[in-house]
């Protein structure tokens, strides 16, 4: 549905999006994750045919951006990062205006209007002047405007920013619902949001894609490893490390403190069983034996903290 090839944006001599490529199949809800200034908004603006790319190609629903930018615009419903609307207009007036410039046939307008007003819960502010709406309502008007022309693709730049918790839940539910019959790209800084809403996540840092996968696959690490912490009593550090390292499925042993070890393991369950057996056989006491799956936060921080994106992480990324 959305094909992005080597998309690049340069401002003066600075590349803010660096040869980004990805593909979003029909019906997928894709999350864009990345620190401030990573290039999420810039990428989205290029896909929406607002900013001309410096290089690269974009295809939306089979329409090539370079050949038919208006065709691309017609197929996308876009909610910008800062939802700026005309303050002097009334909600309904604004939506009618959007319908007209989006090319919705005149006789379909009442039906579309009723649909988006219902979908975005705007019934009670329909006649209100936009300038007097609260932030949450303005966000919903923006979303309604993005939906008015029945676009197959939705691009939402931080759709829940600045909303109260109840609104956030409602908007998320709405996005999940819309995800059933739309292809969606949304950007966010809220990691739990990604896990709730998106089937797939792209992590972008400094204009590059550094990770791509389902939230689960990202959490269990790209290499599929999880961490097991072991604390043993009565064991000699060096030999214990050797024993633990010899267990099948243990990729790496790290000595945390005297008697404490962290194992990077492939199959946590089997490894814990073996650790228990080995300890019993040698007369060690197990004080702790726990497995932890890194949170998306950990993955995010590890991938986007510049110093750590060196050899090891880079290898993991290419693995992903």
């Amino acid at each position, binding site marked *: 549905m959305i094909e992005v090839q080597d998309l690049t944006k340069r401002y003066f001599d600075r590349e803010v999006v660096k040869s980004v490529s990805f593909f979003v199949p029909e019906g997928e809800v894709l999350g864009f994750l990345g620190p401030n200034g990573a290039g999420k908004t810039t990428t989205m603006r290029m896909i929406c045919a607002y900013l001309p790319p410096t290089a690269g190609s974009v295809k939306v629903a089979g329409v090539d951006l370079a050949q038919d930018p208006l065709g691309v615009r017609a197929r996308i419903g876009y909610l910008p990062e800062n939802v*700026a609307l005309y303050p002097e207009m009334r909600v309904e007036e604004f939506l009618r205006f959007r319908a007209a410039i989006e090319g919705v046939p005149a006789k379909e307008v009442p039906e579309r209007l009723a649909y988006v007003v219902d979908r975005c819960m705007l019934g009670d502010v329909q006649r209100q002047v936009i300038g007097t709406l609260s932030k949450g309502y303005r966000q919903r008007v923006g979303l309604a405007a993005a939906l008015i022309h029945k676009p197959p693709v939705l691009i939402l730049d931080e759709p829940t920013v600045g909303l109260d918790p109840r609104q956030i839940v409602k908007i998320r539910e709405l996005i999940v619902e819309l995800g059933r019959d739309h292809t969606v790209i949304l950007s966010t800084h809220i990691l739990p949001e990604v896990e709730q809403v998106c089937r797939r996540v792209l992590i972008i840092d400094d204009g590059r894609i550094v990770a791509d996968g389902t939230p689960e696959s990202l959490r269990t690490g790209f290499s599929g490893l999880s961490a097991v912490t072991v604390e043993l009593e009565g064991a000699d550090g060096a030999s214990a490390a050797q024993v633990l390292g010899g267990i099948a499925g243990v990729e790496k042993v790290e000595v945390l403190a005297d008697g404490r070890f962290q194992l990077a393991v492939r199959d946590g369950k089997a490894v814990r069983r073996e650790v228990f057996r080995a300890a019993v056989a040698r007369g060690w006491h197990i004080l702790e034996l726990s497995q932890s799956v890194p949170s998306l936060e950990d993955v995010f921080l590890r991938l986007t903290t510049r110093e750590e994106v060196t050899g090891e992480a880079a290898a993991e990324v290419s693995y992903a």
Partner: protein
Amino acid sequence: MRKLLALVRRELLAYFSSPLAYVVLTAFLFVNGFVFWLIVAYLNDPRTRAMAPLRLLFGGTMYFWLLLLFVVPVITMRLLAEERRTGTIELLLTAPVTEGQVVMGKFLAAWIFYLFLWLPTLVYVGILASYATIDFGPVAAGYLGIALLGLLFASVGVFTSALAKNQIVAAIFAFAALVVVFSVGLIENLVTNPLWKNALSYMNLWDHMDDFAKGLVDTRRLIYPVSLSGFFLYLSVKALEAVKGR
């Protein structure tokens, strides 16, 4: 076409829901009322030669030009500058409309508003007509001249509004540009080289209005403002394409 209409409609709505529009309208009426009073006083003077009275209203006084040079930038300053300042341009240019349509919509709305400002002056024509015999040919031509002048001035205003993000800056640029556009033609009176004189006479807006007010409709008086405004609109589209992401 429907999209362009929607753009123009929205822009006109924005005009009439902003206080500035009413300030401009009031100032415009006030100055034109003063000019009208001058005309009446002048015509009441027994020493006055018989002449078409509305020639004074249509560009025959400095007030006319001062008014236009100030009013048009105020009308046009908001158009694109405000869209860029608030960021609404992003939503506008992610709808399937071209930069050309956006510029055209803004321009037409500004021009229509400009024509609307002139509407009340028809009352003066009516008043004069009830006291004296009026030749309606020159009156119609005079309004045509004003409309053409509006095309040219509005296109300059749209252009500076595309360049500047700040309305006031856009207005000042527009004023400066319009002073240049207005003054270029006046150089005609200073040069003697017939070639230059001929070329500059094309651009002489004072004579432009004077001809129309006399009832002379010359095609070159049509071509100059129309083609120049086309040029400025083209520049506006290019400017908008270049600056929209900034």
